[in-house]
Structures are given as structure tokens and as C-alpha cells.
């Protein structure tokens, strides 16, 4: 694609900008910031990836994946400030997802151990683990707010913190996994996934593109289950003190 052609795609930014102004939506500034940020961030990543791929150095690759983990953790923790030590718990979940998925993919030689495969797949797994962690934290908070009397009831009857919060925890884990599972049920019927579309547009064989997409969606299932489970089971204890009382 030429830069002239790319510039012409700004028409797609201009349309919502005009609509926002005409309808007094007040989103012009946000649209401008979103466009500017996505352009700068993606171009920067493009240049960085080019550099990392050419350098063929494991150190740069590890640095890049580490940076992704740090940024994803810092972003997700904003939704979990009400839980003590949540930063490390989210980081642990994301690192676990990364180790499990890359461990299987590289360990069984499913994909080659090169930055061209490791970095994009890591990006998808880490990004998804971040979103799942945020979904879990939002839902867990809502469950606790709505069903605080149930937690108190179970404690008052002699239940342990784990017993008292079990239902809310399981419901939040389940709720955070459902979007991943549901989106996979209609994949290919309603929309073609971004990665697969990108490969096909880039000239790849559709069957080959589908195979890689299947690899990703299967890995995303593990990603969803592992990240919400780890964040959930490591964080619920911080809601209680050593006398098995809910922190107020």
C-alpha cells in the first residue's frame, strides 16, 4: 500500500468526526486523540518489529515481550485497585498465560522459534489476558456488591472465606470466559478474524490462514481460563483479614 493510499483511509476518520460535530456528540477530541495515538503507536511498533526481526537477537525479543507484559499489567490493574497487591497477581496471570501458550507452541514445534511468530502470538495472548483480567475484576466487584449479604451469611454460619466467596468467584470467572467462548461459536460465520483476514489480504493461502487462526483461538481459550482463574484465586484472600472478616 502506498502512503497516498493510506492517507486516503483518513476519510474513515473524517466521517465520524463530522457526525460527532453535527450531532454534538462531543467526541471530536477523542477521535483526534485515538487517530493520532493509533497511528504513532502502530508505526512505532512497525519500526521496532522490523528492527527486532532483523537483529535476530533473543534479548530484543524478550525485552519486547516483557514490555508488553508490563504495559498490559499496568493497564489492567486500574480496574483492580480495590484489591491489595493486584498488580503482581495480574502480572503472574499474564506471565503464566505466556509461558503455557509459548511452552506448548514452541515445545511441540507447532510454530518456529523466531520473533516473527513469538512476538505477534505473545501480543495476542497478553492482550487477551489483559482484557480477560479486566472483565473478571469488573464482574467480581459487581458480584460482591450485589451479593455482599450472601458472603456475610456464609461467614456468620461458620464458613471460611473461600467458602463464603466461592459462588461470586466462580460466577465472575465464568462470566469473564463467556465472551471468548461465544465469539468462537460464530467465528467465520459472522466475521472473519483480524489475523486471518490480514494474512489473506497479504496473499497467504486461506487454508494456511485458517490453520493459524485455529491455533490462536484454541490458545485464547486457555488464555481466558488461566488468566481469570489465577487473578481470581490469588486475589480473593486479600478481601479478608486473618480473623476471616471482610475488609471494610
Amino acid at each position, binding site marked *: 500500500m502506498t502512503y497516498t493510499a493510506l492517507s486516503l483511509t483518513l476519510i474513515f476518520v473524517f466521517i465520524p468526526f463530522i457526525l460527532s460535530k453535527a450531532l454534538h456528540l462531543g467526541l471530536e477530541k477523542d477521535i483526534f486523540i485515538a487517530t493520532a495515538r493509533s497511528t504513532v503507536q502502530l508505526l512505532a511498533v512497525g519500526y521496532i518489529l522490523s528492527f527486532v526481526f532483523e537483529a535476530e537477537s533473543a534479548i530484543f525479543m524478550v525485552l519486547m515481550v516483557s514490555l508488553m507484559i508490563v504495559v498490559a499489567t499496568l493497564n489492567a490493574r486500574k480496574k483492580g485497585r480495590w484489591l491489595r497487591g493486584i498488580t503482581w497477581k495480574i502480572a503472574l496471570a499474564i506471565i503464566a498465560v505466556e509461558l503455557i501458550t509459548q511452552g506448548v507452541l514452541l515445545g511441540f514445534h507447532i510454530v518456529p522459534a523466531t520473533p516473527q511468530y513469538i512476538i505477534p502470538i505473545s501480543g495476542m495472548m497478553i492482550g487477551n489476558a489483559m482484557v480477560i483480567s479486566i472483565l473478571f475484576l469488573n464482574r467480581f466487584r459487581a458480584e460482591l456488591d450485589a451479593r455482599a449479604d450472601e458472603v456475610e451469611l456464609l461467614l456468620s*454460619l461458620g464458613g471460611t472465606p473461600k467458602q463464603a466467596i466461592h459462588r461470586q468467584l466462580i460466577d465472575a470467572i465464568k462470566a469473564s470466559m463467556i465472551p471468548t467462548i461465544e465469539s468462537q461459536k460464530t467465528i467465520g460465520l459472522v466475521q472473519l478474524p483480524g489475523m486471518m483476514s490480514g494474512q489473506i489480504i497479504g496473499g497467504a493461502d486461506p487454508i494456511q490462514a485458517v490453520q493459524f487462526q485455529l491455533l490462536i483461538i484454541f490458545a485464547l481459550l486457555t488464555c481466558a481460563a488461566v488468566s481469570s482463574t489465577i487473578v481470581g484465586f490469588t486475589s480473593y484472600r486479600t478481601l479478608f483479614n486473618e480473623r476471616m*472478616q471482610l475488609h471494610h
Partner: protein
Amino acid sequence: MSAITFQNVSYAVEDRQLLTNITGSFEQGRITTLVGPSGAGKTTLLKLCNGLLSPTSGTITVQQKPIDTFVPTTLRQTVGMALQAAPMISGTVYDNLCLPKKLQRQTLSIEDAQKWLEDVHLPASLLTQQARDLSGGQRQRVSIARTLVNRSPILLLDEITSALDRTACREIETLIQKINDKYGTTIIWITHNLEQAMTIGHHTWVMMDGQLIEAGPSSLLETTTNEQIQAFVRGEAR
């Protein structure tokens, strides 16, 4: 002998002082009613008794043992509590009655569950009914039965008759008196109904603004010389 003793107990959350220097005891095997205006700290005091909260200062003893020497789960089985809202877990009435046993990894037989329902004057056929479909009065009775399953020697009741009509209220009062007589259970009962406080309670604590104003035989509500309590009894400070 006292079942629970408070010695200079205070409780604060952040900057809010909810209880101040409470000293007194609840006699074993007796019914003590707890009265006072809303926000007097009555529910907070109950939660301190079964360890859902811990005092900021002062000491509480339960059955002559400092409260913090109990394992929290054992304490809460010893000092049972029926909550004001009578919350139910999703499932049937049987699921709710099983809950205390399930938390101890035990089971409750259908026969035992039926017996607990009969004790609170509910038909055995209710066992298979969904708890969410219960009426306010039925909910409250199931909540009491569920608390009784642990056979706690001390029972805390937080306004358990506030949502009931006069007949249902009277039945619950009779039930609690029966439990007190039959099992020698120590009962601490928060109520807004002063007539109930006097007829049911052997003793009464009057609380206001987080302080214990007066404690003694329930007749104190009629005989007190304390002007604050007199105003409260007249309905001027509820």
C-alpha cells in the same frame, strides 16, 4: 454465669466511632433484648459477638474465653446469628437448611431438615420449594431454622420479626422462648418492638449513639429514671 462479656469495648471504622466503651455481660441461658434508636450500634455489637467484626479496643470473652482465642469458624458455629435481611442462597429450602452442615463438609438428612422446619412451624413440603419464592415470614423462619442447625449455645437475632405480621411475630416469639427453654440457649435479640423487648427479654440493654445507656431487667423500660430512655420509650428518639 455470663455467656458473653464486654469490657470497655469500642469499635470505629476510619473516623467514625460506632461503639464507645461498652461494658456489660449477657447471662447464660437467658434472653437479652437489645433496644435503641436506629444507628445506635446494635447490629455492630452483634457482629462483634460472633467475630464478623473485631473491636478497635477493649476485650470480649465468649464462654469465659477471650474471643480472639477462638478459631473464627468455631466461634461463629458457637455464636449463631440470624441476619435481619434473612438472605437465602439460590436453591431450595433444603439447600439453605443444609448450608451450615455443608460448610463443615457434613450432610443434613431429609428427616432432620423436616424436623427443623417443624420447629419453626413450617410444613415439611416446603423443603423442595425454591427459597426465592418464599414469603417474607417464611424466609425469616427458614433463616432461623438454618441458624439452629448448628445447635449454637448462643444465638444472635437481628430484628428477625420486623417484616412479619402480628400473628407470625407472636409465633416466632413463642418459638424463640421454646428454644431458650428446651436447649438453654442464650439469646441476644435486637428488636424495635419495645413491648416485645419487655415480654420476651429477661434482660434488656438500651443503646444510644454507640453507648450502652442502661442494662438490667426488661422492666427497666418502664421503671427507668433515665430521661433519654424515657424519651425513647415515649417514641421521641426512635
